[in-house]
């Protein structure tokens, strides 16, 4: 049994990953080859282990445990779900500790160094929309966290596998049959999940911040067509604050950072039903031939 000790470069975070599960290590390599190393001398932000329990579930209907800095905060998952467990566990670690940043519950992509922020609650379609924009050339910053550096007002990338759930998987494959998707996990607690791999360019550029330029609140609605409407700044601020994990915790810092984002970005609501048209319409905002959207 091989003991894998890897370091994942996840944007502003250095994540240590230790595991004896070679299948999980292989999946990590599929998603993050350009961001993985084995340099043991790095200072880690998170020290994660994916390891079997010490009881009979080590062998009988085997499970894996997510460990962080020596603690085990979650129930075990089936061994075949080690990768989604790792991804969700790392998200939990970041969401509960990285209060150095304002953390938006948002998909974030960039066109060059200009960021499009897509805040939304589960079911809004932000992850699927982020995936589609990324497949059409936008740089992936994150599908889950908009990490805002409050002192500069910019967004820090943290490109990771985008978890597509249930029918979103087919929607992305219909949008792009060549999309680089990882294994299918049929029985997770969120249903059927498959992850889109971030492209090499996004991983290589993961230390290049982007400046908020568009704030778009998406809402998937079957049969609705694509409706992009300007949103007044007061309502944009209200919705942005609502979609911020740590708005209240960070107090005045949050308020000032959110004001800066809303003042500097063009704000919209976006109802959509077809990914191809949605990507076309949002990409037009970032038209390099002019100041699209102003």
């Amino acid at each position, binding site marked *: 049994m091989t003991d894998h000790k890897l370091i994942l470069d996840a944007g502003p975070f250095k994540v240590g990953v230790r595991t004896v599960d070679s299948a999980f290590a292989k999946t990590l390599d599929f998603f993050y080859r350009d961001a993985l190393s084995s340099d043991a001398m790095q200072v880690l932000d998170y020290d994660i282990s994916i390891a079997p329990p010490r009881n009979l579930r080590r062998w009988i209907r085997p499970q894996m445990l997510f460990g962080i800095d020596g603690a085990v905060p979650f129930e075990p998952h089936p061994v075949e779900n080690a990768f989604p467990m790792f991804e969700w566990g790392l998200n939990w670690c970041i969401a509960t500790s990285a209060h150095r940043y304002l953390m938006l519950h948002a998909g974030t992509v960039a066109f060059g160094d200009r960021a499009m922020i897509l805040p939304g609650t589960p079911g809004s379609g932000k992850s699927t929309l982020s995936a589609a924009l990324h497949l059409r050339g936008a740089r992936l910053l994150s599908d889950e966290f908009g990490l805002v550096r409050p002192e500069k007002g910019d967004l820090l990338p943290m490109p990771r596998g985008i978890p597509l759930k249930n029918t979103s998987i087919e929607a992305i494959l219909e949008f792009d049959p060549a999309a680089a998707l990882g294994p299918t996990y049929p029985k997770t607690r969120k249903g059927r999940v498959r992850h889109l791999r971030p492209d090499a360019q996004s991983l290589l550029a993961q230390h290049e911040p982007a400046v908020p330029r568009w704030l778009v609140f998406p809402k998937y609605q079957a049969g609705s067509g694509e409706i992009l409407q300007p949103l007044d*700044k*007061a309502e944009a*601020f*209200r919705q942005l604050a609502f979609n911020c994990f740590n708005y*209240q915790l960070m107090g*005045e810092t949050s308020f000032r950072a959110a*004001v800066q984002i809303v003042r500097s970005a063009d704000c919209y609501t976006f109802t959509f039903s077809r990914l191809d048209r949605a990507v076309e319409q949002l990409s037009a905002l970032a038209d390099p031939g002019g100041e699209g959207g102003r």
Partner: protein
Amino acid sequence: MSVSGSGELWYRDAPRYLQETFDGVHAIFDPATGETHFLAELPALILTAVDNHPVTAEALLDRLMGSDDAGRAMDQQVSATLQFLAAAELVESTPSAAI
């Protein structure tokens, strides 16, 4: 004409709040509570007036609305707004020593 609640002195005894205005809507961050409020023009105006100096509702009405009939007709609105701001913990009141 007396203003309802005019026997009270309204004041704010808390650190200065932050204010940003977007198209006539005032976003107010209150460091005392950590809450963010969204106020229309009248509550924002009253909050500013109370924050500057403790004031009775009567004096507030005079200062903001003038002493003509149109101004006096706003007394219930001013009183209701003061109650709203108090519920949001942005202002407080105490029995006025002057009454």
